[in-house]
C-alpha cells in the first residue's frame, strides 16, 4: 500500500483548502471526492433485485411434460425426508395405551361373512388339559393356527372361526401331543392311514 501525500490527506480531512494543492494532487482530490459522493447516494435498484433480474433473464424456461410431472411426484414420495414429531409425554403415553388396548382386547363385534363363508364352532371337554388346538384341512394341518380357550378353567374348551363353506376334516390336539377326534362332531371319516383312526368332519354352511 502506498502512503498518501499528507497535503492530500489534510485536504480530504477539511484541514486545507483544496485550491492550494498542486495540480496533480488536485486531480486526485477530485477523484476521491467524486467516489465519496457516489457511495453516499442510495442505488436506484438494489443489488439483490439486479441479481434476480439477471437470473430470470438467463434461466431457461422448463418444458413441463406429464411424464416429468409424474417423475417429480414419484421422487417427492420416495425421497427420504426428516420428519420431526413433537409430542407432550402425557399424549405419548395416552396414545400408547390406546394402541395397546386395541391390540389386546379381543374383537367382539359382528363378523361380516362372505357369500361362501360360514362360522365353525369347536367345543371340547378336556378337564385338566393345558392346551387344546384344532388342526385340519382348513389350515393345511398346521399346528398353532387355531387354539381353543378355557377362560373359566371348567375343562370346556371352545373357539369359533370363519371358514370357507364346504367340507373340512379336523382333529383336536390336546397338550401338544394327543390327537383326538372331536367327540361332538357327529360326522367322521376314516383317515386312510390304516390304523382305523378317524378324523372329525365339519360341513360349513354359507
Amino acid at each position, binding site marked *: 500500500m502506498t502512503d498518501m501525500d499528507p497535503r492530500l490527506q489534510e485536504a480530504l480531512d477539511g484541514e486545507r483548502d483544496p485550491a492550494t494543492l498542486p495540480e496533480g494532487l488536485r486531480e486526485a482530490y477530485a477523484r476521491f471526492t467524486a467516489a465519496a459522493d457516489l457511495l453516499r447516494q442510495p442505488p436506484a435498484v438494489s443489488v439483490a433485485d439486479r441479481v434476480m433480474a439477471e437470473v430470470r433473464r438467463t434461466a431457461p424456461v422448463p418444458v413441463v411434460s406429464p411424464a416429468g410431472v409424474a417423475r417429480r411426484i414419484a421422487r417427492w414420495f420416495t425421497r427420504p425426508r426428516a420428519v420431526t414429531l413433537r409430542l407432550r409425554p402425557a399424549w405419548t403415553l395416552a396414545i400408547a395405551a390406546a394402541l395397546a388396548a386395541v391390540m389386546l382386547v379381543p374383537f367382539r363385534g359382528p363378523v361380516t361373512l362372505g357369500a361362501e363363508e360360514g362360522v365353525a364352532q369347536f367345543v371340547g371337554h378336556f378337564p385338566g388339559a393345558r392346551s387344546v388346538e384344532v388342526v385340519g*384341512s382348513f389350515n393345511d394341518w*398346521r399346528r398353532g393356527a387355531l387354539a381353543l380357550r378355557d377362560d373359566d378353567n371348567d375343562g370346556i374348551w371352545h373357539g369359533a372361526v370363519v371358514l370357507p*363353506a364346504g367340507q373340512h376334516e379336523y382333529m383336536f390336539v390336546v397338550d401338544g401331543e394327543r390327537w383326538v377326534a372331536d367327540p361332538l362332531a357327529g360326522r367322521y371319516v376314516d*383317515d*386312510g392311514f390304516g390304523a382305523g383312526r378317524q378324523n372329525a*368332519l365339519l*360341513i360349513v*354352511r354359507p
Partner: protein
Amino acid sequence: MKLLAALLIVAAPVAAQSPHARLEGRVPAAALPGIDSLIEQAAAESLPTEPLVQKALEGGAKGIPVGRLVNGVRHGLVQLRDARAIVSRATPDRVTIDDDVAAVAAALARGLDPGMVERLLAAAPPAPPPGEPPGPVLHAAADLVAHGFPADSVVDLLKTARQEGLRGSRLLDVAVAASHELQREGGRTPAEALARVRAMMPNVPVATPPRPKVVTRRAGPGS
C-alpha cells in the same frame, strides 16, 4: 410397469407353490419321492391333486410312519380314480370338474356305497354346466345312512327333496329333520320318520347353530 413386475415377482411363488414345495419339511424326507410320484400320476390323469397334498400334510402332522403315510396317499389316489369313473358314468354329458371328483371321493371315504353315489349324481339336474355341486346331497345321504336309514329310501327322499326345489345346504336340513324325527320321544321307525319329513317338504326346518360371541376371522393355511 416396474411395480407390476415387482408384484408378480412377490406373488408368483405364493400362487404357484408346487406340491413338492408345500410338502418339503412337512413330511419325512424318505416319504417325499413316493408322494411326489403319486401326485404326478394324479396330475397326469387330470385328477385333482389337492386332496393328495392334504392327505400327505395330515400324515406328516400326525407323525404317521413313512410306509403308512405313502399308502394313505396312494389310497387317496385310488379313491379319486373311482370317483372320476362314477362322475363320468352318472353324468356323461357334463364336463367333469375337479370339485365334483373331490366331493365324490370324500363321499366314498365316508363309506357311501358307490352305486348310491352314482344314482344321486344321475338325479342332479343336467346343464347348464357345471351343474349343481354334488357335495351337499352326498353329505346329506351319508348323514342319513349313518343314522340307519336304508340306502334306497335315502335316495328316494333326496330325489323328492330336489323335486320340491330344495338345493345345496337345504338338503342337509332334510337329513337333520329326518334324524330329529327318528329321535323323537316315543320313537319312530325310519320309515315313519322319512314319511314325516316328506310331508314337511319343502318347509323343513332350517338348522342354524347359534352364532358365538367371539369369532376369529380365519385360521387359514400358514396363518
